[in-house]
């Protein structure tokens, strides 16, 4: 019964979404406050209904109600409790429910906290959110209903895909969706602005916290996904340029560009039309990601939910929303008043270059992802576009971006002083290069070219420090004044510095791992020892084991440094009994920022086993850098000038020498 109520709540949510889609828009045209108020109450109601419906589905999973088809297909009574919860979105139907839940959550948050938005803008924004909600609720109800029953109810479920039985599933999709769907708010703001035919700096100020929040979550989601793939898939890779990874990476690139262009728009009233277009494109890429993952048009390791009929439905949603928004843009954009002008050498100028490079990078990834598909459709020729293509093109595009990032914050708005910035960064670049040389000397063994990559990463980190350093005037004014200045800097200045430094740390990690990593593929028998990364690993032997829903063969390894045992680890090959599906559980040991990664291969005829051991120096920098970037996002978000609901600046006694911040 409860299942049917959940289903019914979803139907009611559709009805609410339909009202929400129409009434506030009409209200905004007629300046009818009562009609516009429907937006607020409607959004909250819609969220409550979807949340209830989602709760019911969760309940069905937790109590293992196998009369529900979705639970039967994707759960098992023996699955640990946490995976019963996270298993709710470990399948197509459930993940669409999560998508919708987050979408309506964002609507409700805009409704509740957007009190100081202009009445018509708020009504229009929430209505556009309503349109998206209608499309996705319809999609769920018509093609992916999670509330379908089975009669008679099976006694046991078919188990959650073993690869998904991991904490990663509890964290990665919600974060990723908070990012993906968060951009829907920017999209709705853009469409609402086009509907009203008016856009100004205030609009940018309202949109920026949403962009920032979505970007922060997406950063965390992608990083988490990458780390999950790294430890779960058992071959030590952390980024595969898989179409689905690209699908999440493209909105990130566009979103990063949006974050920076909204900044220019807020501060300088320039790049308005571009910012609106970028807001539309960013969410369009999120939608396209959803389509690519679920339609099965591209082969991918994530293809857990592909079904062509669903694909066509999502393709229609995609065409309607992207096509509609872009047509609206084409009609209305010329009417939007043009933005301001600026000198090429200025912070705006640097941000335009940032936007150019990020957009081109995004376009390149898009081309690479879709090209095989288009070529096959048009000519029937099958080609592959894989990591070698992406590494090369994307790497070439990112290199200049990395070099200009530290310049941006050092240039002033309107008219920057390139020579001044160069003089300031001269020292930074020198320090970065020397540090890279030292690093290279200590690690030794990699290609000499890696020094340049390391220096680029360090340049970003030191450049971010230098930005704060110069703003506080350290060395030019007395210590106490500098301290006052530093603490008086707006939080967004620290956010910027953290995000840029985080990027540098990620670059460092990537360069260090790709160039200094060592690998051993050997056949080992109990008692044998291998040296890797300055440690020696002793294989102690295999042992059978069993978990709640799997059996495993696990090998024990003792790690010694200079003869002293410092750590030990298990590396296992598992067999999940319900699906008879094997997985590898790598043994991972962390030493500082580096890791030893031990993965088991096949057993050999003479009683040994193939063991793959990698020494991954500084690999944690890759994800650590992403965490720092996201932390920078949160710090920026906490800046009171950006805080949702507090767009107006409080008159505060000006801190001496406070520079305009981003």
């Amino acid at each position, binding site marked *: 019964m409860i299942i049917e109520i959940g289903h019914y709540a979803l139907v009611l949510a559709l009805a609410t979404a339909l009202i929400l889609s129409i009434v506030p828009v009409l209200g905004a045209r007629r300046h009818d406050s009562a009609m516009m108020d429907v937006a607020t109450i409607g959004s909250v109601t819609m969220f409550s209904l979807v949340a209830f419906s989602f709760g019911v589905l969760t309940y069905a999973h937790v109590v293992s109600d196998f009369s529900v088809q979705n639970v039967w297909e994707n759960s098992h009574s023996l699955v640990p409790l946490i995976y019963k919860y996270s298993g709710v979105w470990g399948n197509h139907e459930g993940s669409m429910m999560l998508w919708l839940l987050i979408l309506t959550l964002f609507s409700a948050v805009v409704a509740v906290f957007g009190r100081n938005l202009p009445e018509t803008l708020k009504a229009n924004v929430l209505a556009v959110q309503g349109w998206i909600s209608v499309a996705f609720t319809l999609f769920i109800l018509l093609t992916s209903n999670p509330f379908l029953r089975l009669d008679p109810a099976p006694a046991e479920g078919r188990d959650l895909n073993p690869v998904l039985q991991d904490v990663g599933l509890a964290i990665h999709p919600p974060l990723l969706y908070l990012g993906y769907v968060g951009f829907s708010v920017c999209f709705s703001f853009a469409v609402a602005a086009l509907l009203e035919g008016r856009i100004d700096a205030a609009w940018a100020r309202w949109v920026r916290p949403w962009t920032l929040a979505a970007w922060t979550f997406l950063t965390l989601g992608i990083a988490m996904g990458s780390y999950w793939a790294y430890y779960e898939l058992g*071959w030590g890779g952390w980024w*595969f340029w898989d*179409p689905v990874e690209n699908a999440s990476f493209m909105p990130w690139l566009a979103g990063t560009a949006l974050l920076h262009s909204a900044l220019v728009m807020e501060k300088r*009233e320039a790049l308005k039309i571009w910012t609106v277009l970028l807001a539309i494109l960013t969410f369009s890429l999120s939608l396209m990601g959803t389509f690519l993952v679920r339609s099965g048009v591209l082969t991918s390791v994530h293809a857990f939910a592909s079904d062509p009929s669903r694909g066509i439905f999502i393709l229609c949603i995609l065409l309607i929303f992207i096509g509609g928004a872009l047509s609206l843009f084409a009609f209305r954009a010329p009417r939007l008043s043009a933005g301001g002008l600026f000198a090429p050498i200025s912070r705006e100028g640097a941000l335009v270059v940032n936007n150019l490079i990020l957009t081109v990078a995004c376009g390149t990834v898009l081309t690479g992802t879709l090209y095989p598909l288009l070529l096959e459709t048009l000519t029937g020729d099958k080609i592959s576009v894989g990591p070698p293509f992406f590494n*090369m093109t994307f790497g070439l*595009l990112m290199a200049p971006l990395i070099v200009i990032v530290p310049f941006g914050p050092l240039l002033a708005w309107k008219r920057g002083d390139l020579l001044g910035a160069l003089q300031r960064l001269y020292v930074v670049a020198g320090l970065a290069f020397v540090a890279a040389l030292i690093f290279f000397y200590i690690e030794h063994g990699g290609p000499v070219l890696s020094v340049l990559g390391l220096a680029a990463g360090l340049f970003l980190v030191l450049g971010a420090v230098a930005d704060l350093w110069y703003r506080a005037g350290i060395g030019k004014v007395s210590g106490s004044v500098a301290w006052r200045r530093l603490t008086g800097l707006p939080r967004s200045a620290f956010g910027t510095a953290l995000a840029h430094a985080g990027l540098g740390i990620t670059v460092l990690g990537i360069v260090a791992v790709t160039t200094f990593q060592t690998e051993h593929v050997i056949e080992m028998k109990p008692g044998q020892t291998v040296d890797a990364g300055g440690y020696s690993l002793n294989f102690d032997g295999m042992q059978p084991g069993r978990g709640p829903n799997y059996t495993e063969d696990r090998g024990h390894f003792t790690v010694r440094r200079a003869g002293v045992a410092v750590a030990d680890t298990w590396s296992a090959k598992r067999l999940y009994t319900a699906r008879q599906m094997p997985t590898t559980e790598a043994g991972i040991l962390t030493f500082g920022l580096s890791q030893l990664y031990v993965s088991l291969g096949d057993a050999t005829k003479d009683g040994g086993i193939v063991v793959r051991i990698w020494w991954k120096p500084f690999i944690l920098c890759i994800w650590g850098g992403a965490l720092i970037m996201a932390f920078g996002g949160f710090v920026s978000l906490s800046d009171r000038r950006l805080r949702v609901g507090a767009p107006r600046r409080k008159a505060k006694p000006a801190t001496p020498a406070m520079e305009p911040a981003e």
Partner: protein
Amino acid sequence: MMRRLLLAFALLLMTAPAFAVNPDEVLADPALEARARALSAELRCMVCQNQSIDDSNADLAKDLRLLVRERITDGDSDEAVLNYIVSRYGEFVLLKPRFSVKTALLWGAPALLVLTGGLSLLLFARKRAGKPTGSKLTADEQARLSELLKK
């Protein structure tokens, strides 16, 4: 200098590894083995989803890895090995598609996009020059502004 830097960076990123090679496949000569590994990373495992033969545990991938090593020990150049494999399995096997008429747009995409972006930037800047900037005020805001100015 800049170009060399770019190239260096590209070279750095080109070697992202992940492996499924077995000990019995490894060639005795480390130089030849390194070449085999580099080539393997550019070849697609035909029965897998987006994995190179270097990453894959599939039998077909193993066969291909052995084939690559066989050709290399027979003295083939990298180019010859790739040609041989493409002649047997088609262009689909290459993860880095070759430049041809079919892939011109793919390889040209970054350059084309940069050019388009740069040109439109220039055009917009030209068109915009000399025009008034900033957004127009609504009648309502204009009234409020003049009221404030009177004070």
